[in-house]
């Protein structure tokens, strides 16, 4: 059953140096507060997993937390580059970054296989691309009925998945809605999970087809209103597009970034 903890305790107990850490949320519900807490607790050698690394991984990479990134599209959506990600890949600053690079469909299906307890998933993808050539987690599989050769992707099973959701109830069940990305799969694929939530409610409304993670599939819940800022939580907040646009300049320069990190993450204490 999910345990209710402070964000600080949840990260301290569940995120260890060297872990494979998935942080999911597709534009919507990105767990920024948890990412900042990981930075504050100075975790190192993490393998980060995220379809769209977004600013959250840019910040973790720039802060020196990650040794590897498993991803499928690493830009600042609608704005430009992830300069801390680029600086790590192009110049090895603050350290080199290994890449395990997929397409969205491929990485999403790696989570599907993980959630399903299967060693791999099948899709029609990667044919003819250099994405495939360099990647040991992509292989061929032949249909035993038709002979068609398809792509297989290896299951991914993070040590820990962290997501942000709109609501938890007092029993520790979690509910999210709107754009739900690959959050259900990423939690079900992981050994442990942390969910930060906007609100803790007595009862969910009657919509039982929304994405719900039962309490016994979640390790820890932390009540962190606004925990996805500058991303957004449908029904609770709007995306701060200015923050995303400002990041383009702020993140370009190492010193400006480090100053931001000092003032906005390290000095802030637990969100």
């Amino acid at each position, binding site marked *: 059953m999910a345990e209710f903890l402070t964000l600080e305790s949840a990260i301290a107990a569940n995120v260890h140096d060297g872990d494979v850490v998935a942080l999911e949320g597709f534009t919507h519900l990105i767990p920024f507060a948890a990412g900042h807490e990981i930075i504050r607790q100075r975790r190192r050698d993490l393998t980060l997993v995220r379809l769209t690394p977004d600013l959250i991984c840019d910040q973790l990479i720039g802060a020196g937390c990650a040794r590897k990134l498993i991803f499928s*599209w690493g830009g600042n959506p609608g704005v430009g580059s992830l300069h801390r990600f680029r600086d790590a890949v192009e110049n090895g600053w603050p350290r080199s970054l290994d890449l395990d690079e997929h397409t969205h469909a491929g990485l999403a299906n790696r989570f*599907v296989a993980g959630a399903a307890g299967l060693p791999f998933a099948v899709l029609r993808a990667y044919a003819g691309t250099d994405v495939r050539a360099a990647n040991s987690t992509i292989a061929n599989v032949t249909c035993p009925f038709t002979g068609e050769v398809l792509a297989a992707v290896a299951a991914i099973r993070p040590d820990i998945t962290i997501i942000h959701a709109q609501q938890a109830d007092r029993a520790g069940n979690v509910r999210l809605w709107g754009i739900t*990305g690959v959050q259900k799969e990423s939690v079900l694929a992981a050994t442990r999970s942390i969910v930060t939530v906007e609100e803790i409610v007595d009862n969910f409304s009657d919509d039982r087809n929304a994405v719900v993670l039962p309490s016994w599939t979640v390790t820890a819940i932390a009540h962190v209103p606004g925990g996805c800022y500058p991303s957004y939580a449908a029904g609770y907040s709007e995306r701060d597009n200015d923050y995303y646009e400002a990041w383009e300049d702020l993140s370009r320069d190492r010193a400006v970034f480090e100053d931001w990190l000092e003032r906005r993450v390290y000095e802030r204490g637990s969100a």
Partner: protein
Amino acid sequence: MKRAFTTDEIMTIAASRELIGARSCFVGIGLPSIAANLARSLHSPGLVLVYESGTIGAKPTRLPLSIGDGELARTADIVVSVPEIFNYWLQPGRIDVGMLSGAQVDCFANLNTTVIGSYEHPKVRLPGAGGAPEIATACPRTIIVMRQSKRTFVAHLDFLTTVGFGVGAGSRASLGMPGAGPSVLISDLGMFRPDPETFEMILTSLHPGVSVVDVRNATGWDLKVSGELIETAEPTDEELDYVRRLNFGTSAEATN
């Protein structure tokens, strides 16, 4: 008297016209999103916009800043998970047209959105693949929209992220790619369509005021020109009004 328009505007408007008759479009962010939203506003009010964030039938009233914009979810017919959008909706070829862009394109409409330079030691690390390789595989046809220069229209891609026609005739079939591939490549200078024999992209239309020499000077390969080269129709007032209204307040820079 004719209204002035930018090269980006004619590129976007030309792309939107290519969606006339399409039922549904899988949309990347940036230029493709502007063109697809323009098409839905102007030519094809029933056009179903599908984004890789899982929003199907989005009817945004402003241009979404990202493919996971709340506006898309709020106005969609359904929102599904990311695995579902790729597995149940894109992969079976349900979405008529895919709109793509890239940092580099070659003469067979293959795209690079991964690196400039070598993969191991890139000069510029680009965002990567996103949804593009499977959009290019599964959609019955694709449309590519990107600004043209010798840096972007290249003889050899630094990295092949997304297959257009591979090495030419027969490549798609041998790779098991169900869709027909790019029907058109639209730049800020002109339009290019695949030769029905070789599948090399040849210049078929020049935007108003652009010459073949201008295009050659912005193409990194030995460009072939159609024997029936035409001029792209100028934007109508209505098209210009719409594209300017849509474009307001967001950036068209990102390529996915």
